[in-house]
């Protein structure tokens, strides 16, 4: 072997050792998080997947039932209804929360005085625990003394049965979520708006851009990545709605607000069938992942 070839081999070996050490160091740094990820996410998901082929297991021993739970889910009209309600709820809340939040963020950005106080006030509803917010909401929609119906009566209309009408119950709960969620997302988007360079607006103004065009061609691309994160996260949260529905209607009236997670909860705690609940959880997870991928792909296509 020539000296050059030997040096080349040594060099490659040294690079390999260096790369291995780098990988090991990287793994060592990631290990705590990986462990956390595996213990608190991968293992539970694997356990849920296994549970979907079992019956029982909460109060008694689990029993292998093969695909029974899956075939039951395929023909379950109540499950389809719960998923439909969940998608409807998400379709109502996500645009409403982010639309109002963006409008508020734009207003807050232009505020010259009292900004911190107004921001605190805007954020306040997000601090209300869901149960408390739900109980407050029951007063807000009361036919006699509620604020919403006072407004309705103010325009000469009859009071509306917000939570008791099957057509309005889900939108009413969505309204609560809009009230609760808007403050948080307004501040989240405000942070993104403040990061958009003022020079871009100045350049747009010099080019004769209208306010709308400045918003469309400067603001939206500037906050695009943040907006995408907001859309994905609000979608995730909305798809998993449970607490506000549980407090306000518990699925009623006449099943009009049954949602996917409420259905999962009932399968586990009321029907004592965590296996079926596991199937529903996996279906919901697949649904959320698919929806998130669609949102991300559409958003990327929009920015491309």
């Amino acid at each position, binding site marked *: 072997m020539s000296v050059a070839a030997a040096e080349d081999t040594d060099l490659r070996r040294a690079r390999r050792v260096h790369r291995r050490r780098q990988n090991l160091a990287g793994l060592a740094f990631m290990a705590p998080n990986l462990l956390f990820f595996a213990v608190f996410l991968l293992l539970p998901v694997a356990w849920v997947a296994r549970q979907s082929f079992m019956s029982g297991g*909460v*109060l*008694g021993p689990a029993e292998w039932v093969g695909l029974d739970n899956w075939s039951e889910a395929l023909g379950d009209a109540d499950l389809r209804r719960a998923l439909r309600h969940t998608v409807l709820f998400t379709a109502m809340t996500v645009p409403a929360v982010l639309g109002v939040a963006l409008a508020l963020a734009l207003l807050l950005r232009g505020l010259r005085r009292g900004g911190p106080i107004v921001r605190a006030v805007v954020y306040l509803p997000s601090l209300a625990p869901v149960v408390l917010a739900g109980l407050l909401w*029951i007063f807000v929609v*009361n*036919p*006699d003394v509620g604020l919403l119906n006072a407004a309705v009566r103010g325009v000469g209309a009859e009071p509306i*049965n917000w*939570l*008791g*009408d*099957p057509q309005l*119950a889900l939108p009413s709960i969505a309204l609560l979520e809009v009230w609760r969620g808007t403050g948080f997302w307004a501040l989240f988007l405000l942070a993104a708006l403040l990061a958009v360079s003022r020079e871009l607006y100045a350049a747009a103004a010099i080019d004769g851009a209208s306010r709308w065009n400045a918003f469309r061609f400067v603001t939206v691309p500037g906050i695009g990545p943040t907006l995408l994160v907001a859309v994905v996260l609000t979608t995730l949260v909305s798809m998993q709605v449970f607490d506000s529905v549980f407090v*306000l*209607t*518990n*699925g*009623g*009236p*006449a*099943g009009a607000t049954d949602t996917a997670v409420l259905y999962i*909860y*009932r399968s*586990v*705690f*009321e*029907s*004592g069938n965590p296996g079926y609940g596991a199937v529903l959880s996996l279906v919901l997870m697949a649904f959320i992942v698919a929806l998130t991928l669609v949102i991300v792909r559409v958003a990327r296509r929009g920015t491309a």
Partner: protein
Amino acid sequence: MHEGTSRREFLRRGAGGGLLIATGGLVAACGGDDGGSAATGEAAGRIRYLKGPNWAEDLDWQRKTARAFTADNPRIQVEPNLYDWASVETQLTTAFASNSPPDIVYMADTLWPKFADANALLDLTEYVNDPAYADQKAAYPDEAWEDVTYDGKIYGIPLIQGVISVVYVNTDLIDDAAGAVASYDAMREAARQARKGNVFGYAMATTHNDFSYQEWMNYVVNAGAGILGEDGRSPGFDTPENAQAFDLLRGMHFEDESAPPPGAYNREALKSLFQAGRVAIYHSDANEKIINGSAEGKPVKFGYEIHKLPPGPAGQYVFTVRGNVHVAAKSESPDAAWEYVKHLTSANVATEFIRAQGGDLQPARTDIADTVYPDGEEFDWSRRLVTEFIPDSRAVQPHPRMVEMIKAVQTEFERCIRGEQGGAEMVAAANAAIGELAA
């Protein structure tokens, strides 16, 4: 939690203990049964007792009772705790799924069969049928034992019974209260006549969150129907009489609009409407002091009468809920738990418990029916409940999926009172749903 005891706390507890000892002595002197006597045999252990609160100071009362019991039975320590009624099923499911559930659990009649069916409760048949317990067993009516029996085994000891369905008739709005509740037709007509402006003729809770079944079940039992049939296994909801009962409710809500729009007001808001004089016939539970506002120091200013729901084709019953105490199958000290269950359900302790609660609960035992409430105007209504209402009581049958069955019926009921289906369709649909769950 801080477990230390300050000097003031020590003195307060000492005074409380002294009071309990004095009370115990007084009760013993009066010849009552020995609720606080020492346990027989070698029972020993640390017992955890979990229950839902029946009044604000329930936990304090339970702790005092437990301390008094331990004073007499030093080998048995009892640690009472409370669950939250709103999430009772979740909490108890989690508790029983663990390896160390509470030894004793207080549960309502809709819930315990689910845990009995899953073998999470101890079969108490041998304890109850022990000749040494014969006197105590005889103190309960047969129905009380039937209501804690599942699959031929006794799983609990009845403690209390609560009347959860009566009608309050505002006599400022309806002159002839007795006439208004003489029959279903009379009630419907009276409600229709009373409906004026913002005054409703009839009101009842209409959502599952507000335990609406407490009211509509009274119509079911008056119709001679039930969630389940007499065999306790197959559905018993689809009868012509029951269909008529739900047609009546549909009529009052949808056709006459005598009642508030379904779901518009929760139970709390309905109570406020009644207190404001805006409901002529209010169908709710028998907690008169809460319903009439006196519990909050604001008693209603109008006159009212309390009646049973009008008679149905099968009779005039009152719907009740039973509260029983159960022992966990996984209890490490079942004998000690049984000793404390006997203590809690004994005549003296049950009497003290019911009196301490304030008058809204009725005893499951018949031997204290005449003495549980002391003489005096304050407890007139409570005594009337025990003597007039309880003898005509009906409760749900034990079934592990009873809560789901009630929820399934609730959905159909809500469709019915919104006019989406008639009584016959409603009871048929509910019956089918019950059948699926019972299968």
